[in-house]
Each structure stands twice: as structure tokens, then as C-alpha cells.
């Protein structure tokens, strides 16, 4: 079935590239929600994400003829999406450095604070899903941009290391280390935020 749907997609791509809007509709229906979600994660504001996602879909329509199938179609789509969003972010000079909790070079303490991380784990396992999600999401927003982007692409959107490398034009090695640093930073932020949430939670549970 997987192979069938791939062959079907292949046909849609070819037809859409020739200007068949019906084929394009079939094709884009498979990806538009995902495109919108990536835009929403990266740009934060729903109206901006809406415009950006429309722009991405139109770009895909216009550039389909240029897609020669060197990479997987999905990879290409995500690449167009990520690049469009990153361009917009750059354009708007929205650099979220103001919430830079860590110094350049991420001098994280050498010793891992086992007690604190354990606390967070315990705490989160008691929270209902929605609360964990909110805590996590807010913490991700506090990351500086280069980390925020890799966490969104890898852990939320599930891009492979190769896809991230292609989207961001960095090497696989850099992807690996950047993800690791991003996660370490996220963990730190979660630990700081947990106190807030712990109070809230205790109040709620009583």
C-alpha cells in the first residue's frame, strides 16, 4: 500500500507540474496541514503562519517543474517550508535572543543535576497531558532561535537528521551536536519552569 501511494504521488507530481490543478489539489492535501503546523511552530502567530503556509503551497505549485526528484518530495516540501519561515523570521528580525538564558557557548554546568531532573520527571508524569504539553511548549519558546528550530524540526515534527541538515544547510555532525545542546538547554529551562508549575499543580490538586 505504501508503494502504491508513492506511485500515486509520483503521478500527481508529474501531472501537477504540467499545470493540472486537480492533481496538485490531491498532492497538496497530503501536506498542507503539516506545512501549516511547521509554519505555526516556527512563526508562532497564527495569522503569519496562515500567510506563510499559503505562500509555501503556491511556491510548491510554481516550482514543481523544477523538482527533479533528487530528494524525496516530502523532504523538498519541508525544505521549502522551513526556508520560507526562516526567511520571514530573518526579515522581521525577530531574534529571540532577549530570552537568552545562557551565555554564548552554552557553558552548562559540568555536573548534571540529577535531583532536579528527577523531580521534573516525577512531576511531569503526574501532570495530565495537556499540562505537560503547555509546559514543554512554553519552554521551547524560551529557547534561542537556533535551538528552538532544531527542537521543533526534530522532536515535534520528526524530521530526520539528514532532512534537518539539508533544510538548515549544515553538516550532519552539526545537526547532532546542535540537537544535543538544544535538548540540554530545554531541560534547563524546564527545570526552572517546573517550580512555577509545581505550585500551580499543588494548588490544583488540593
Amino acid at each position, binding site marked *: 500500500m505504501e508503494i502504491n501511494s508513492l506511485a500515486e504521488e509520483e503521478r500527481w507530481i508529474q501531472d501537477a507540474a504540467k499545470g493540472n490543478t486537480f492533481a*496538485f489539489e490531491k498532492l497538496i492535501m497530503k501536506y*498542507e496541514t503539516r506545512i501549516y503546523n511547521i509554519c505555526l511552530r516556527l512563526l508562532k502567530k497564527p495569522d503569519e503562519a496562515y500567510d506563510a503556509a499559503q505562500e509555501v503551497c503556491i511556491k510548491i505549485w510554481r516550482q514543481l517543474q523544477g523538482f527533479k526528484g533528487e530528494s524525496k518530495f516530502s523532504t523538498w516540501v519541508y525544505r521549502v517550508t522551513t526556508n520560507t519561515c526562516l*526567511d520571514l523570521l530573518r*526579515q522581521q528580525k525577530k531574534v529571540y535572543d532577549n530570552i537568552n538564558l545562557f551565555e554564548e557557548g552554552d557553558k552548562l554546568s559540568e555536573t*548534571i543535576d540529577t535531583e532536579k531532573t*528527577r523531580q521534573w520527571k516525577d512531576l511531569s508524569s503526574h501532570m495530565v497531558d495537556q499540562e505537560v504539553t503547555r509546559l514543554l511548549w512554553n519552554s521551547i519558546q524560551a529557547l534561542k532561535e537556533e535551538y528552538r528550530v532544531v527542537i521543533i524540526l526534530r*522532536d515535534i515534527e520528526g524530521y530526520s537528521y539528514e532532512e534537518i541538515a539539508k533544510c538548515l544547510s549544515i553538516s550532519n555532525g552539526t545537526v547532532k551536536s546542535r540537537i*544535543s545542546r538544544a*535538548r540540554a538547554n530545554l531541560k534547563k529551562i524546564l527545570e526552572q519552569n517546573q517550580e512555577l508549575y509545581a505550585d500551580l499543580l499543588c494548588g490544583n490538586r488540593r
Partner: protein
Amino acid sequence: MKCSEYEVLISAYVDGMLSPQEKEQVVSHLENCTQCKASYEVLLHMVDGCRQINEIELPKDFHQNLMGKIQKEQTKKRCIKWLPTKKDDRWRYISAMVATFFLGIILFNEIKHINLKTDTEMTQENGVIVASLKENEEPGDSIHNIEERSTMSIRSRNVGEAPISQIQEDEVVNGDLEKTLGVLGSCKIVCKIKVQEKADFERQLEYILGKEQINYEKAENGYKVNCNTPIEKLVEWLEEYSLDIEWESGHDSEVDDAQIEIILMGVS
């Protein structure tokens, strides 16, 4: 290896991105180091949490809105096909225009020499030009009067420019003429623009065109923009953005249907 050095490896281990040797190394370290083990578990938990961040539903009008734009773009694409894309064709196009122009002049000169009688009709049967001069009541009138009173129509089977405005829609029979209709009633404007940075200009222009839902084609050194909405905003933006701007064949922001050719000049 110190624990801190394991950090990258543990993170990659979570994603299953380690070589068999590295994997073995990490597994044995995790067995012996409680701190790293705890940290690994938190990482797993965190990544799992991220995956549970739900996908948000597409806004209701998104798909319809998008397909509307795509349809519009596709219709436009068909409409502007009259413009030859190959260099070869472009030359044919230009020479056809030049030929039509000169034939027009020759024809006009011919008229001057014709001894005018009432009901003069001149037809050139080669299929390129058909000119008809209708009734001229006062024989011996000056050329000036003839110009005023006679109706002259020039039909061109090739792609022409100015005279086409006289073609009535019902006269359009063959495909070539149909294509020329793309220019009918529209106004062609050439804009030479100097900008600081090409990439930035392109990005911003494309953004604006997209936002205004204006169709365009990227050309060799600029853009071919097809407006069917008032071009005011675009003109305003171009004027504002450019370092230097030059308009050829004038620009009238009242125009409703314009083709603007934007040519980038001296880009760094």
C-alpha cells in the same frame, strides 16, 4: 571519557543515530553511571512529550483559499502564453512587429498617391494587410480630410501591437489572433529599477506580489508582473524601495490591467 562528553552521544542514542560501536559504548556507560542514566531517562521523557504536542487543525478556509489562488494563477498562465519564451520566437515576434509597422507606412504613402474617387476600395490580398477606404464624398479633398473621414482598419495575422485595439472580438478567428488578445486593453509598462541587494529585493517583491495576489513570472533579470488589480500599491512600493527607478512608457496608477516588466539594473 567524562560524563559531559557523553551528552551528544546520549542525545543521538535517543534518536537511534549511533554507529554500533558508539551504541555499545553508550549502553555500557549508562549501565555504570547513575547520573547519565537519569539524564537519559529525562531526555526520553522530554522527547516523548514533544511528540505529543498535537498537530493543529488547518483553518477552515485555508484549502479553498489556496485552490482559488492556484486556479487564478493557472488561468493567468494560459493567458500570458502569447509572450514567446524562446529567444528564437522572440525575434520572430519582433520582426513581425517591425514588418507590420513598415507595411503600415508604405500603405499610408500609397494612399497619398491614389487618385481618389468615391467608393475607393483597396485590398491587398496577401493576407497580411487589408485596408479599406470608405466613401469620400468630396472628390479632390486634401489628404488631411481623407484621414479624418475614412475608416481604416489594419488586420494583422501576426502578432502586432497598436492596431490590434481595433480588432473586434467577433473578428477573432484564428489562434494567433486569440493570443494577441492578451495585450488587448491592457497597458504594458517597463520599469528599470536599481536596488541595493538583489536577494532582498526579490524576497520582498515576491512577498508583496503574493500578498496582493498578483501573478508574476520571473524573467532573466527581473520580473514580468501581470496585474489585474490596481497597481497603485506596487508602484508605490517600487518607488519607495528603489535606489533609482526609471519608468518607460509611463505609469498610471489608475490602470486596472497592466503588465509591468521589472528590470533590475546594476545589481551588486
